[in-house]
C-alpha cells in the first residue's frame, strides 16, 4: 500500500515555503494567525517525515525512489529539483523538523512582545524550507541553491532587530563569510561537473569510482575538487578561518540562535560533507579537513573559557563542537559525525533555549556575572539546562558521551594520535567552560537585582525544554548511532544491538577512547569546581594575564581581518580600481572630448565674419599655391 508514497515527500519540503509566502503576503499583521500557520507547516513536515521514515525502515530498502521535477536542462547540464529519500536524508530531516518544530513552539512564547512577530515567523518558515531543501537535495546544484537560501534566511534572522547597529553589522558579516565559502563550493561543483559530466550524487558516485580506476588513484584535480567543496562547509559550519561570523550571529533572537546557529544551519556543512563523502574519501582531502576541524575545535574551546556573555559561550561551544564533527569526517568517521550532529542538535538547542529562558527572565541580561542563584527560582530551566550541560560534556550515559566517544574512537582507528589527543583536550575544556557557566549562573549568590526578581518562564517555553532534555539524555542509546553506522558501513548493515549492549557499547568497542573521554570530563569538572565555587568574579584573568585577555578578545582574529587583511587585499584593489576609473579612464574620455572641443574652438576663430580676414586668407592661399606651382 505504500508503493507510491514518494510524491508525498513534497509535503516535507513545501509547507514551510507556503507558510512563509502566506505570512509575508497576507497575515503579517495578525500575530496569532502567523504563528499558527508557521507552526502548523513545520508540524506537517515533521509528520510526513516520520511517516516516510517509517515506510523506508519497513521496506528495508536503501532509499525510496527520488521524486523530481526538471528545473534547468541545457545540453549536458541537467539540474533537477529532486528529493533524495534515503536513511541519511530522512534521519536528518527528522532532526531538522523535530528540533525545529520545538523551537517554533518555544518562539511563540519567547517573541510574544515583539513588534514584528509576523515577520519573525515568515523568516523562520523560509529558513525551514531552505534547510529541508539542503537535506533532501539529490544533486550539487540543488544543494547549492538551498545552501544560498539558508544563507539569506540566516541573514534576515540575524538582522531581525535591524535597528541595532550590532545586528546590522552581524548579519552582513555572516552573509559575507558564508558567501566566501560558497564561492569555493560553486567552483568545486563546476569542477566536479566538468570531471564527471553530471551534478547528480547518484551519477557522480559511480563516475568517481570509474575515474579512480582509470587514473589508478587520486589526482590533483580530484584533490582540488574535494578541497573546494569543503570550502562550502568551512563557510556554513563556521570553521577556521571563516569562524568569525558565528559568535556575532548571536545578535539575533535567542530561538534563532538555537535553531540556526546551533542545531541545524551550521550543521548543514557537516551534513554536506557526509553526503559527498564518496567524493572526499578518495580525493585525499580528508587530512586537511580533519586538521581544520580539529584546530577549530581547540581554538573555539579555548576562547569559550574566557567569555562572559551566556550566548557567546554557547556560540563558541557550538563552533568547537562543529570542529569536532568536521574532524570526525576528516578521520574517516562520517557516521560518528552524523551521530554527534544529531545529539548536538538536541542538547545545544536545549542549552540555547535554556539560556533564552534565563535571558527572558532577567529582562535581556546576558552577562553571566550578573546572574547567579537561579537554581531555585527557575527549577525547570535549571534541571533541563543541567541535563544539556552534562550531555554536552559527555557524561555517561547521556547522549553526548556516546557520540563523542564515536569521534574519539574514529580518530584512534585512523591512527592519528595527534588528533585523538586534541579531541581529549577539547573534551576537557568543554567540561571546564560549561560548568563554569552553570556554576556562575545557577549557583552562588545573586549578582544583580534582576537575578533576584527572576521567575520561571511560561509553559509554552518550558515544554520544549523538557522534550529536548529527554532526548539529550536518552539520545545515545536508542539506535541513532547504529542507524548512521549502517548507512556508511560498506559491508552492509550493522547488527542491531540490545538495549544493554547499546548502553555499554563504547566500553566494549573502544575502551581506550571511552576511558580517556571519561577522564577528560572528570578532570575538567574538578578544575572548574576548584576555580569557580562560590566566586563572584572571574579569578582566571589574574592568573593567566595576557593569555586571558587574548582569549577574551578572540585572539584578535576579527581585528586582524578588519584592520589588516581586508583593507590590504580586496579593499585596496577596489580603491585602486576606483581611482583608475575616476582618473585614467574617465580622464581619457574627457581628454578626447576636450581635444575635439578645442579643435572646434580653434576652427571657430577662422569663421570670424570679417571680410578683410577672409580676403587676407584667400590671398595668402593663392600666394602659397603660386609658390608651389611656380617656384618649385
Amino acid at each position, binding site marked *: 500500500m505504500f508503493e507510491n508514497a514518494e510524491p508525498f515527500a513534497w509535503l516535507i519540503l513545501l509547507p514551510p515555503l507556503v507558510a512563509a509566502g502566506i505570512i509575508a503576503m497576507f497575515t503579517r499583521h495578525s500575530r496569532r494567525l502567523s504563528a499558527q500557520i508557521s507552526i502548523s507547516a513545520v508540524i506537517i513536515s515533521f509528520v510526513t517525515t516520520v511517516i516516510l521514515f517509517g515506510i523506508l525502515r519497513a521496506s528495508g530498502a536503501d532509499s525510496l525512489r527520488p521524486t523530481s521535477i526538471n528545473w534547468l536542462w541545457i545540453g549536458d547540464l*541537467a539540474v533537477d529539483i529532486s528529493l533524495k529519500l534515503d536513511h541519511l536524508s530522512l534521519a536528518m530531516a527528522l532532526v531538522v523538523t523535530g528540533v525545529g518544530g520545538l523551537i517554533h513552539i518555544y518562539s511563540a512564547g519567547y517573541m510574544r512582545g515583539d513588534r514584528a512577530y509576523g515577520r519573525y515567523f515568515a523568516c523562520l518558515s523560509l529558513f525551514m524550507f531552505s534547510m529541508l531543501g539542503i537535506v533532501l537535495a539529490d544533486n550539487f546544484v540543488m544543494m547549492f541553491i538551498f545552501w544560498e537560501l539558508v544563507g539569506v534566511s540566516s541573514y534576515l534572522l540575524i538582522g531581525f532587530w535591524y535597528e541595532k547597529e550590532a545586528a546590522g553589522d552581524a548579519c552582513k558579516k555572516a552573509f559575507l563569510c558564508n*558567501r566566501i565559502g560558497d*564561492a569555493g563550493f560553486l567552483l568545486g561543483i563546476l569542477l566536479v561537473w566538468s*570531471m*564527471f559530466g553530471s551534478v547528480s550524487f547518484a551519477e557522480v558516485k559511480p563516475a568517481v569510482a570509474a575515474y579512480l580506476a582509470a587514473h589508478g588513484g587520486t589526482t590533483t584535480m580530484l584533490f582540488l575538487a574535494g578541497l573546494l567543496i569543503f570550502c562550502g562547509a568551512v563557510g556554513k559550519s563556521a570553521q577556521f578561518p571563516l569562524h568569525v561570523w558565528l559568535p556575532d550571529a548571536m545578535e539575533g533572537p535567542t530561538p534563532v540562535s538555537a535553531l540556526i546557529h546551533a542545531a541545524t544551519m551550521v550543521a548543514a556543512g557537516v551534513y554536506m560533507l557526509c553526503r559527498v563523502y564518496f567524493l572526499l574519501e578518495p580525493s585525499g582531502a580528508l587530512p586537511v579537513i580533519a586538521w581544520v576541524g580539529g584546530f577549530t575545535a581547540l581554538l573555539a574551546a579555548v576562547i569559550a573559557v574566557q567569555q562572559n556573555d551566556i550566548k557567546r559561550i554557547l556560540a563558541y561551544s557550538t563552533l568547537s563542537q562543529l570542529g569536532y564533527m568536521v574532524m570526525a569526517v576528516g578521520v574517516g568517521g562520517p557516521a560518528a559525525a552524523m551521530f554527534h550532529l544529531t545529539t548536538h542538535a538536541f542538547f545545544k538547542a536545549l542549552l540555547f533555549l535554556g539560556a533564552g529562558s534565563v535571558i527572558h527572565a532577567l529582562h535581556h541580561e546576558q552577562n553571566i556575572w550578573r546572574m547567579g542563584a537561579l537554581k531555585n527560582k527557575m527549577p525547570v530551566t535549571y534541571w533541563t539546562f543541567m541535563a544539556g550541560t552534562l550531555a554536552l560534556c559527555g557524561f555517561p550515559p547521556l547522549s553526548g558521551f556516546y557520540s563523542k566517544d564515536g569521534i574519539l574512537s574514529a580518530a584512534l582507528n585512523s591512527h592519528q594520535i595527534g588528533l585523538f589527543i586534541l579531541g581529549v583536550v577539547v573534551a576537557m575544556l568543554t567540561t571546564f567552560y560549561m560548568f563554569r557557566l552553570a556554576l556562575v549562573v545557577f549557583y552562588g549568590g545573586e549578582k544583580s537585582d534582576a537575578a533576584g526578581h527572576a521567575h520561571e518562564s511560561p509553559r509554552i517555553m518550558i515544554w520544549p525544554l523538557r522534550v529536548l532534555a529527554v532526548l539529550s539524555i536518552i539520545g545515545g542509546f536508542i539506535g541513532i548511532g547504529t542507524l548512521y553506522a549502517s548507512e556508511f558501513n560498506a559491508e552492509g548493515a550493522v547488527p542491531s544491538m540490545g538495549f544493554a549492549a547499546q548502553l555499554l557499547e563504547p566500553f566494549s568497542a573502544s575502551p581506550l577512547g571511552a576511558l580517556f573521554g571519561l577522564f577528560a570530563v572528570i578532570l575538567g569538572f574538578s578544575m572548574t569546581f576548584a576555580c569557580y565555587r562560590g566566586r563572584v568574579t572571574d579569578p582566571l584573568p589574574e592568573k593567566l594575564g595576557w593569555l586571558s585577555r587574548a582569549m577574551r578578545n578572540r585572539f584578535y582574529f576579527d581585528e586582524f581581518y578588519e584592520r589588516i587583511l581586508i583593507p590590504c587585499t580586496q579593499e585596496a584593489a577596489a*580603491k585602486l580600481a576606483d581611482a583608475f576609473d575616476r582618473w585614467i579612464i574617465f580622464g581619457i574620455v574627457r581628454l578626447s572630448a576636450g581635444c575635439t572641443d578645442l579643435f572646434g574652438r580653434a576652427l571657430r576663430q577662422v569663421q570670424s565674419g570679417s571680410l578683410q580676414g577672409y580676403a587676407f586668407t584667400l590671398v595668402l592661399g593663392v600666394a602659397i599655391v603660386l609658390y608651389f606651382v611656380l617656384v618649385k
Partner: protein
Amino acid sequence: MSILTYIIGWPLVAAFLLCLVPRDYKFVMRLVAVVVTFIVMVLAVKMFWQFDNNAEGFQYEQHATWVRSLGIGYHVGVDGLNAGLILMGAVVAFAASLVSWEIREREKEFYILLLVMTGGILGAFASLDLFFFYFFHELALVPTFIMIGVWGRGENKNYATFQITLYLSLGALISLVGLIALYLRSGANTFDIVELTNHVRQNPLSTADQGFIFPLLLFGFGILISLWPFHTWAPLGYGSAPTPTAMLHAGVLKKFGLYGLLRIALPLMPGAVAQWAHVIAWLCLGNILYCGMVAMRQKNLNWLIGYSSVAHMGFVFLGIASFNLIGVTGAVLVMIAHGFLAALTFALSGYLEKQTGTLEIAQLGGLLRRLPFVGCVLIMAMFAGCGLPGFANFAGEVTVFFGAWKKFNLITSLAVWSALVIGAVYMTRAIRGILHGPLPDKWMAVVESTWPLRKVPYLVLLTSLLVFGFFPGLLVDKIKPAVARILPVQSASAARPATGTTMALADQRR
C-alpha cells in the same frame, strides 16, 4: 497583421495621438500612457504564452517590402532569442509609465517621448530587417538624450547628457558602419536578416571580411552595452536620468547591442567570434571584476546601481565568449533577468530619492522602519543582484558559469568570486547603510505612500524576477533551440556526456 505589429504600433500611435491632446489634460496623458503600455504588456504576455517551443524558424512573422532595389522591408518575427526580450521590454515599459507619475513638468512632451522610446525598443527587438532594426534603435535612443537633458536630476545633468549623447552616438555610428559593410560584403543584396543569414551560411564571409567587420560590431555594440573600458557613460548617465528613462534604458535599450551581437555577429561571423573569444573574455572581466570593485567604492546609491549594472553586463559577455549552447543560453537568460532587475532597482532608487531628496548612502539609514514595503522590495532586489537563487539572475549567472567553465577556467573562477563575494559586499553594504541601523531624526517624517497603484510597478517587476527564477525552463526551453541555430553546427551539439549513465539519462530526457 502580426501581434508584433500591434505591440510596436500601439505606443507609436498613442504617441502621435498625444501630440493632439492639449497640454493641460495631464491626467488623460498619464492614463493613455499607462493604458497603452498595459495593453502592450498583455499582448506581449499573450505572444510569449502562445509561443511554440518546438516550431522551426520564426513565429508571428509579417513581411512587407519597402525598397525593393536595396532589399529593405518591414519584417518582424520572434524566435527564442527575442521572445523573452520583448516580454521583458513590455513589462518594463508598463512599470516605467506607472513610475512616471513623479514627472511634474512638461508632462506632454515626456509622455510622448516615453511612448516613442517604448515603441522603438520593442521594434528594434522584433525587427528582422537590418534597416528597421537600426532605425527603431535610433528612434528609442534619441528620446533618451532629450529626456536626460530636460527632466534629468542633479547638477551633473548637462555634462551627463553631453557625454551619453556623444558616446552612444559614436557606438551606434561604428556599428552602423559594420552593418553596412556586412550588407555590402555579403553580396546578398538584402537587409533582411533571415535571408542574409541563410545566404551567408551558404557562402561564408571571407576571413579577412570577418576580421574587419566583427571588431566594428563588437566595439560599436560594445559601447552601447558599456563593455569595459567604454563604460563610463553608464553610471553617469543613469545617475542623472529621470527614473523612467533610466529604467527603460538600463533595463531594455542597453540589451539592443547584445541582441545585435547574438542575432547578427555570432551567426554570420563564427570564425571571428572564435578568434576574438579570448579578448571578449578578458574584457568581460573588466566589467565583472573591475566594475564590481568600483561599485564597492561608490557612496551614492544610483552610482552603485549603475556600476553594478555595468558589472552584470560582463556575465552576458562571458556567456557569449564561451560560444557554446550552455553559455549563450545563459547569456540570454542574464539579459532578460537583468532587464527586470535594473528597472526595479532604478525604480526603487527613484522612489527613495523622491522621499528623502538624497541618495548619498552615508546620509540615509534605518529607513526600513519607515518604508516597510519599498524597503523589503529593495532588499529583495539587492539579493537578486548578488545572484540569490529564486530570482532569475541566479539561473542566468549559474548557467553562464557552467558554459564558460571548460573554456576559461581562470576567468570563470574570478567571475564566480566577483558574483558571489564582491556583489554581496556592495549590496549588503547598501542595505546596511540605507535600511538597517538606527533611524536618524530627519527621516522620522518619511511616509510610504499607501496608494496601491504606487506598488504595482515594483510588484510586476519583482514577480517577473521570481517567476523566471523559480521556473527558468519557461525561458530556457524557448532560448535553447534558437541558440542552437545560431551556433556553428559542431558546437551546437554540445552534448558530450562523460559517462554512460549521463548519456542514458540525456537520451531518456529527449
